[in-house]
């Protein structure tokens, strides 16, 4: 039952703060055609398409239908999945199940966003309960700020500790030609940047980006023919436990991410993720999240993430590099962000990440975050899974 699945092609746009030269569908077509080109496939080789975004971000209802001209799905099965910030990873997981089911052999998964076309915070606020939460909720920045405030209190971490994450990711982005923000920053610059919502400052948080990403999933038989080095999907998992923002447990490791990681490790037989994983593409919407959520990946004891980051273990060349692509803090086309994590993880284990390649990467983890603690995790490897 079920068939093995591999990633055989990826495509990204050059992510920018604004892409007025293309409409949304044309932006999607750029990523889609690049993924096809990467895999050496044509549109007619694709059996089905999965796409996602958040309706109120661009004000478009039924995006799967609207994007047909660019998503490659004309006269094919097209499905929309959406889970907020996690949408990109949710699209990838849906792409995986399309192929794993045996019903399709070659499936295109697409995430996209044109943040420049709207007021992102206004749109994000609408994810909160209209009555009990929207009046106070200040969007992703403020939501992540309340979490960051609590992390500082709980673990005694400082704004300076968190800044290390932003500095690392922005440094990595310089080597990624598709990244949005590609300029080195310093800890002092992060600390001195304008405060948006205490304790989050401008350089602690992800940017608003226009961009799209497409990833092609294929069955074992197809993958062997399409790609020299397919990136095999070993495990996928997702969790979402809460209705209200304030239902998220404050104690312990970020619960949904931890649960999803533990399920993936268990099913993959991973006992020591710090040493068994070669690279992580982590959905880190803020520097504080990029610090504390490492705990939930099970690669260190609770509260020890600061040490991993400050010791350089998560740098390129470190013991477990995190976000060689530059991560979310460098590029955040929201609906695509999770899928970029998956694409980058696949590029790493296929040895096709170019200048930001982690040498010898064989096993990569990609994570997604959205809404009130929605978590997706994918484990991707160069070796064919059992």
């Amino acid at each position, binding site marked *: 039952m079920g068939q093995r699945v591999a990633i055989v092609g990826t495509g990204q746009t050059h992510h920018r703060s604004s892409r007025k030269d293309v409409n949304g569908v*044309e932006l999607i077509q750029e990523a889609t055609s690049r993924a096809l080109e990467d895999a050496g496939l044509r*549109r007619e080789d694709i059996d089905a398409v999965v796409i996602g975004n958040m309706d109120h971000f661009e004000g478009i209802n039924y995006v799967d239908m609207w994007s047909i001209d660019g998503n490659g799905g*004309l006269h094919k099965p097209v499905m929309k999945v959406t889970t907020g910030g996690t949408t990109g990873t949710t699209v990838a997981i849906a792409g995986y199940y399309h192929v794993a089911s045996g019903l399709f052999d070659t499936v295109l998964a697409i995430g996209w966003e044109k943040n*420049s076309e709207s007021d992102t915070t206004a749109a994000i606020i609408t994810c909160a309960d*209209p*009555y009990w939460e929207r009046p106070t909720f200040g969007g992703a920045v403020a939501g992540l700020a309340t979490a960051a405030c609590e992390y500082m209190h709980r673990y005694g971490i400082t704004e300076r500790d968190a800044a290390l994450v932003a500095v690392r990711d922005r440094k990595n982005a310089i080597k990624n030609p598709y990244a949005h923000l590609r300029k080195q920053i310093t800890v002092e610059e992060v600390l001195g940047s304008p405060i948006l919502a205490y304790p989050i400052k401008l350089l602690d948080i992800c940017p608003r980006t226009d961009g799209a990403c497409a990833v092609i999933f294929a069955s074992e038989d197809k993958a062997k023919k399409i790609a020299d080095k397919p990136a095999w999907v070993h495990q996928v998992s997702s969790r979402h436990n809460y209705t209200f923002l304030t239902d998220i447990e404050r104690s312990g490791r970020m619960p949904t991410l931890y649960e999803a990681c533990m399920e993936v490790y268990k099913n993959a037989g991973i006992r020591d993720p710090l040493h068994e994983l070669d690279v992580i593409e982590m959905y880190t919407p803020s520097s504080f999240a990029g610090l504390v959520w490492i705990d939930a990946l099970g690669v260190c004891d609770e509260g020890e993430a600061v040490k991993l980051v400050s010791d350089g273990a998560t740098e390129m060349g470190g013991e477990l590099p995190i976000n060689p692509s530059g991560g979310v803090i460098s590029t955040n086309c929201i609906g695509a962000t999770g899928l970029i994590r998956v694409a980058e993880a696949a590029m790493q284990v296929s040895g096709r990440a170019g200048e930001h390649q982690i040498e010898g990467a064989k096993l990569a983890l990609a994570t997604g975050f959205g809404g009130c603690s929605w978590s997706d995790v994918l484990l991707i490897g160069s070796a064919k899974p059992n």
Partner: protein
Amino acid sequence: MVSDEIVYHGKIKVPYEWSVGEYGSRFFYELKENRKIWATRCSRCKKVFIPPRKSCPNCFVHIGEWLEVGPGGNLITFTIVRYSAQTHITSAPFAMGIVQLDGSDTGLVHLIGGVDIEEIRSGMRVKPVFKEERKGNLLDILYFTPLEVTP
């Protein structure tokens, strides 16, 4: 009021500014400046698209060829809208339809006007009536009107 019947009258008001893109901008520029309707043609399947596509949805190749279509066209289908809605830009009853301009393989949805709405028939020959003041959007065409109105 019984507590389980409480309804909160809220709203979602978010502004959007959709990029028309390079191709759409040229299309609207021609409407605005020259009262002309331009389309693009796929080099592989030869299909002529309006609104203009930058790539062919079917062949998935880049499209570079532009051509003028219309101004005359055929009314493929239409409806007389008799209800009121916030989305309407003119008061009911009014007519809208799909017009296939001469030289194009696809149709364009627009208002049908300048005629007694009860006289509108599918298959009619129609042409665009442009607004005097044009802004670079689809409503630079006021409506499509029959070429010859039968008395």
